[in-house]
């Protein structure tokens, strides 16, 4: 009997603990906002008395003329912009009225990203890192969208959104550590360069497979909605990734399940070498929004204020109304796809030069700043010098650092170490001890 009573005491104790955690979680949920159906209800309730189509999947009027709907019925979605190419505000009502300090920060982040890209690109060319992807020409989409978000908003990126992370304060040392896969890499040296991630900055670690992040972002947004903590999710992807099945899945799930999510498509003209006219036949990615019952907009991605305004409003409404928004930011990938690509094989130098010299997000913002007297040639010179120095210093620190301990090859596969993995790890070490001279042990931490 003693056993029974002590067992039941234990039982009670365990239950108490369970109840406590459940209580904590429950209290977080107490202020949960109601689940409203906010999307326009396109499907009418059944009513047999009406002389209207009653199919459960759609309802509109009957017609007696044979007519196919033209695919371009929703073509020509306009491109929203705030500044013209010379950095002039076109419609003062659309001026986000950002302070000088904020605009300078935009500019410095965009140019710092540009500088980091140049140095890391060169370092790959010199064989110092294995791979790199530049962000040239797309700086406006990164900084404009990142600035419009709350720092708590969760970011699911693709792989060309380093500026978002930079805007959130990811230190240069961490960028470099990741690209060098050294002992300071938060990802423990496991992924190729540019696969950044930061728990503290709410930036989910990048993975190489395209579009997989899109349905995941929908799931995360759903969970965030249930927590009711004024938090949104943003999901970046390219117009190429939008052809993947996962993109369709993510769009449809987020619309039907009413997720506070911003889909941010960087339409940069190319998926590696494949131009947009071989990627899709409709009017870009924004045109797909209505098909999913989703609010959509197309913006000039080289206009950082347009990107900022669109993202800010989408973010506000996504959280207030629990629904997804689709932003298609039109931009241009000025660099090659990656260091493994040579884009001169599939596009002209003139085309690239146009975007680099005449319609660049950085120069457009500089025009804006110069016109206001916020930025001079001297400022430009000294900032360029300073940012280059900062990047080079971080670069050199990263290069000197050892690689992570090879033990990390085996950890984090599961939360716990499994007996099999332990065995394999021990076998590796026995082997490496025996054949020491064939393994670069001195490059790794011990």
């Amino acid at each position, binding site marked *: 009997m003693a056993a*029974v009573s002590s067992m039941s005491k234990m039982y009670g104790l365990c239950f108490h603990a369970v109840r406590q955690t459940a209580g904590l979680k429950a209290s977080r949920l107490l202020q949960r906002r109601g689940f409203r159906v906010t999307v326009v209800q396109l499907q009418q309730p059944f009513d047999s008395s009406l002389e209207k189509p009653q199919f459960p999947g759609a309802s509109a009027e009957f017609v007696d003329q044979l007519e196919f709907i033209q695919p371009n019925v929703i073509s020509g979605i306009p491109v929203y912009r705030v500044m013209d190419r010379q950095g002039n505000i076109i419609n003062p009502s659309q001026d986000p009225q950002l302070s000088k300090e904020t605009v300078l920060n935009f500019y410095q982040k965009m140019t710092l990203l540009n500088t980091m890209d140049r140095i890391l690109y060169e370092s790959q060319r010199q064989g110092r890192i294995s791979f790199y992807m530049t962000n040239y020409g797309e700086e406006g989409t990164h900084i404009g969208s990142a600035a419009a978000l709350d720092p708590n908003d969760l970011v699911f990126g693709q792989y060309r959104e380093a500026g978002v992370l930079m805007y959130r304060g990811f230190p240069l040392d961490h960028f470099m550590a990741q690209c060098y896969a050294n002992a300071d890499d938060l990802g423990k040296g496991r992924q190729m360069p540019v696969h950044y*991630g930061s728990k503290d900055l709410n930036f989910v670690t990048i993975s190489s497979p395209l579009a997989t992040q899109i349905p995941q972002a*929908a*799931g995360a947004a759903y969970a965030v909605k249930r*927590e009711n903590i004024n938090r949104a999710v943003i999901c970046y992807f390219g117009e190429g990734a939008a052809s993947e099945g996962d993109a369709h899945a993510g769009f449809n799930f987020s619309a039907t399940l009413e997720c506070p999510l911003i889909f941010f498509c960087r339409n940069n003209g190319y998926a590696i070498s494949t131009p947009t006219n071989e990627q899709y036949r409709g009017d870009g990615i924004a045109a797909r929004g209505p098909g999913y019952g989703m609010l959509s907009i197309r913006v000039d991605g080289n206009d950082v204020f347009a990107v900022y305004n669109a993202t800010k409003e989408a973010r506000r409404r996504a959280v207030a109304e629990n629904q997804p928004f689709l932003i298609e930011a039109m931009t241009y990938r000025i660099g090659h796809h990656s260091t493994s690509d040579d884009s001169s094989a599939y596009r002209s130098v003139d085309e690239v030069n146009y975007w680099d010299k005449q319609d660049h997000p950085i120069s457009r913002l500089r025009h804006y700043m110069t016109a206001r007297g916020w930025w001079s040639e001297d400022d430009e010179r000294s900032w360029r010098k300073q940012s280059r120095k900062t990047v080079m210093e971080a670069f050199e620190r990263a290069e000197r650092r050892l690689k992570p301990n090879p033990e990390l090859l085996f950890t984090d596969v*599961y939360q716990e170490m499994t*007996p099999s993995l332990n065995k394999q790890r021990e076998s590796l070490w026995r082997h490496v001890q025996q054949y020491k001279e064939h393994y670069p042990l001195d490059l790794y931490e011990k």
Partner: protein
Amino acid sequence: MRSSWQYSNIIQQLTTINPYKSHICCCLYRQKVEFNYSICAFLFCRNTTKIQPAGSQLARVLSILHFFNLIGSPKGPTQKMNLFQSITSALDNTLASDPTAVIFGEDVAFGGVFRCTVGLRDKYGKDRVFNTPLCEQGIVGFGIGVAVAGATAIAEIQFADYIFPAFDQIVNEAAKYRYRSGNLFDCGNLTIRAPWGCVGHGALYHSQSPEAFFAHCPGLKIVIPRGPIQAKGLLLSCIADKNPCIFFEPKILYRAAVEQVPEEPYTIPLSQAEILQEGSDVTLVSWGTQIHVLKEVASMAQEKLGVSCEVIDLQTILPWDIETVCKSVVKTGRLLISHEAPVTGGFAAEISSTVQEECFLNLEAPISRVCGYDTPFPHIFEPFYTPDKWKCFEAIKKMINY
């Protein structure tokens, strides 16, 4: 480790030391026990629907305890449940105790095509038990996102045969989330459930056992129960486990047998095989539906050949319990592995290879795999395709006479 001495020692500790400490003892022994079983009240006979009073049989209990992973029933009432009801009960417990938990998939809102989620939407709300669009890659991707955001995701794929559109999300994303992020992010809160295995008339696309595809993927856990009691305990373990789990439910068993299943939550440890029957001549290993075939084969072998078989239910396919299987083969010297999936590249191949490495000098006969043929799962030919008791029986005969 699993001696009856250990158990009596634990029982002694339960009676003498403070409850918290004894709970730790239990946990240490059981690795993942979150529930404490009342040893003196009842003993579960795990393969029958009966509960035997065990107070007067404590000695017997202790002597056979090491065959069982469950020491006894969790304190509290039990109910007659078949397999789908025990799944519902596990989901019910989860929704009740974890306010972040959500259950979703195709047709789950009205109760699911196999009735596993009956009543849960009405009880817990349509934001917690809901239909998704018909899109497996979306269901799993969505589930990963829910889990990454810190909530508990229980995704249903309507048939294991239709899990393949989600293969990328499972293999490239779920399985690698923790590793590739250096443990910054993980989707350990994700459990994917899917009906699995032959059903008598399922043909190519309602019969498959795809566990081996996923068993080649580090980072996943794959679990297959053989009956209602295991289904609930193992499913609750999967949900609690901090790694993404795939839980395959033998669909032919959904309504097959009824057991007395505890209403309260309890867990059965993952990665631990269970010895259902001790024997000395041949080790028989399987999981899910096929374990019931092997149990019958063991009786046939005893009756007709006088051969004593040890029957092991692997329960967790990945990471699997190498120790229990190898210990058994060291004792018996013979191993038969049986599964419905095609023999080539099936999980039996992995077991066979490992056992060959670990127990080479103990083997009295080549390891035998009695599995599905290397064809798609056929419709009207199912009686010829499945690794039935006669094929297994014949394999045992050959091993004994080798």
